[in-house]
């Protein structure tokens, strides 16, 4: 009977199913949306290296996987691989290792932990983030942007007529060369983006909405992930707490503005927000309430005020934070849990946020289909009760047995129907 529906009808049906779950209404059935990562590549028989370098193969892999498993939403390939291999090569990117460049061709990219922003540079960042990023940060994370260290402060251009001669800075051969290379990298990024965008159009035309196209991070994570490193940001909580808080407040409107812009342009209201460094064990509850939650809370409510749906991908364990994160408007956000006790999460948050996740990645990797089925049954019975639940893995699915994914999707479609 599903075959009789047109792709448009299917798209509407799936979108409504997800939106009902988000709004804490009872949908026709529990939506199921496996959180695919490099599984797309492995399932389709290409390596993560090919996914980074051969855009058409990567697009084909995504399409094949989505068509084979028929999820209610698919993970945008742009949420998995945020930049293609050739562009990383051209800019000589330092902040990650990617397949063939520091990790094997069969592995996903991984972060290189460094203090890309030094402790004593907080003031420079807070006073003028754009100038800091162009002249100090980019030279550290793009090998090709090293000569940008030689540029004059960007604010020096404010004196209009009196600063026109500063264009001389761009005539230095090293700077000219850097700009030319970045321009080529830009053209390559455009090519990649158009192929990635066409996947959304094509799959949308076949009836599949995407999970999200916009991405944002908790301001503390922006500082910890990209600027100060895990260790650096932890030490900052003791040594320069005021600067750290000020920096997160500086980052907040920028994160908000970028996410709102992309979400509205894409037409998909959901904004992916992976949470990294505020989990249980990574800081005390008091530190969470001081450094992490205030600006994350403003990010969530700011997106909701814009009519958008934050999809918080809450990595690691948040069991001790559940009461704190209750404080958001009802029926407006998705809380996707990894190692948090999801049954407790339903108890504490069930009347506030849509709960997503619940299937352990270790089970999908090492278990058998019957175990996956048992796990999904319990999730539907308990967490799915009364709506407000999306079936998914707790983690990004890179490795997993395809038969386990299949049973997770098919069983949810069969057993997850609300009568």
């Amino acid at each position, binding site marked *: 009977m599903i075959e009789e529906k047109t792709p448009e009808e299917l798209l509407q049906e799936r979108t409504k199913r997800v939106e009902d779950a988000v709004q804490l209404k009872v949908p026709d059935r529990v939506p199921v949306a496996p959180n695919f990562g490099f599984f797309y590549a492995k399932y389709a028989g290409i390596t993560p290296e090919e996914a980074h370098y051969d855009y058409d193969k990567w697009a084909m892999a995504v399409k094949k996987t989505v068509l084979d498993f028929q999820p209610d939403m698919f993970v945008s390939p742009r949420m998995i691989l945020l930049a293609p291999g050739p562009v990383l090569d051209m800019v000589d990117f330092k902040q990650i*290792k990617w397949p063939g460049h*520091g*990790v*094997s061709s*069969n*592995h*996903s990219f*991984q972060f*290189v*932990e460094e203090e890309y922003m030094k402790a004593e540079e907080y003031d420079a960042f807070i006073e003028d983030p754009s100038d800091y990023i162009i002249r100090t940060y980019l030279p550290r994370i793009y090998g090709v942007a090293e000569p940008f260290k030689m540029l004059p402060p960007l604010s020096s251009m404010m004196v209009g007529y009196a600063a026109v001669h500063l264009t001389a800075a761009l005539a230095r051969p090293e700077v000219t060369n850097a700009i030319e290379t970045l321009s080529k990298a830009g053209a390559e990024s455009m090519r990649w983006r158009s192929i990635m965008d066409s996947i959304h159009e094509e799959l949308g035309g076949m009836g599949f909405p995407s999970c999200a196209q916009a991405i944002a991070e908790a301001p503390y994570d922006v500082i910890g992930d990209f600027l100060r490193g*895990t*260790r650096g940001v*932890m*030490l900052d*909580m*003791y*040594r320069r707490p005021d600067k750290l808080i000020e920096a997160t407040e500086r980052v907040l409107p920028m994160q908000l503005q970028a996410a709102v812009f992309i979400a509205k342009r894409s037409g998909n209201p959901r904004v992916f927000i992976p949470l990294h460094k505020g989990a249980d*064990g*990574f*800081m*005390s509850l008091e*530190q969470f309430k001081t450094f992490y939650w205030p600006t994350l809370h403003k990010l969530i409510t700011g997106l909701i005020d814009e009519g958008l749906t934050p999809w918080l991908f809450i990595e*690691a364990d948040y069991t001790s934070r559940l009461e704190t994160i209750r404080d958001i408007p009802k029926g407006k956000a998705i809380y996707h849990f990894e*190692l948090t006790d999801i049954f407790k999460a339903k108890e504490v948050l069930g009347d506030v946020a849509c709960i997503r996740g619940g299937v*352990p*990645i*270790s*089970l999908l*990797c*090492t*278990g058998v289909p019957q175990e996956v089925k048992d796990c999904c049954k319990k999730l539907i019975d308990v967490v799915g009760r009364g709506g407000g639940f999306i079936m998914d893995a707790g*983690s990004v699915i*890179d*490795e*997993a047995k395809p038969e386990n994914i299949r049973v997770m999707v098919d069983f949810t479609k069969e057993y997850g129907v609300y009568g």
Partner: protein
Amino acid sequence: MAEDLVKTIADLHEEEALRIVEERLQAGEDAFKILEDSRNAMEIVGKRFENREYFIPDLVYSGEILQEIAEIVKPKLTGAIEFERLDKVIIGTVAGDIHDIGKNIVTFMLDINGFEVYDLGVDVPAQKFIEKAEETQARIIGLSGLLTLAFESMKETIEVIRGTGLRDKVKIMIGGGQINDEVRKYTGADAFGTDAMSAVLLVKDWAGEK
């Protein structure tokens, strides 16, 4: 005064701790005593971590304070100092995975609990674990990994160890945020843990088996 320093470090008051260290050195105190106090303070830090009063940032910060003290004190030390060490443990993040935060915390916690830890770093091939085990005669190996790709890598590492005949002589523990008993069975490890304390308890347990 000794207690002051122990408490000051354990309570993570960095500036005050460094001031006390400087003062005690200027007063002509034996540098070794200061190090001993620092070690006692770290034991308290470890206990607080075990009791979930302290979390990872507290460990990282205490390690930082300890290192600063060591740097101040080192030039004043006469002769080498050797703390008596318990069993030897080899630890490393398995091949293909370059994450080290969890592993470093386990190394740190084992170290302050008195074990001799050989930390092989990240992306460690199976052969490196074997060479180190043969060289040091360590009986305990810890394999760390954050990513799901580490499951396969841990399994392969343990298979290679089995191939050398070393498997029966060593206990192998695996650790990481995604690890559980299913993964332990899959990889063929003896035990697993998802935090640093479970690693310490396992090692203590195994070390006591002699």
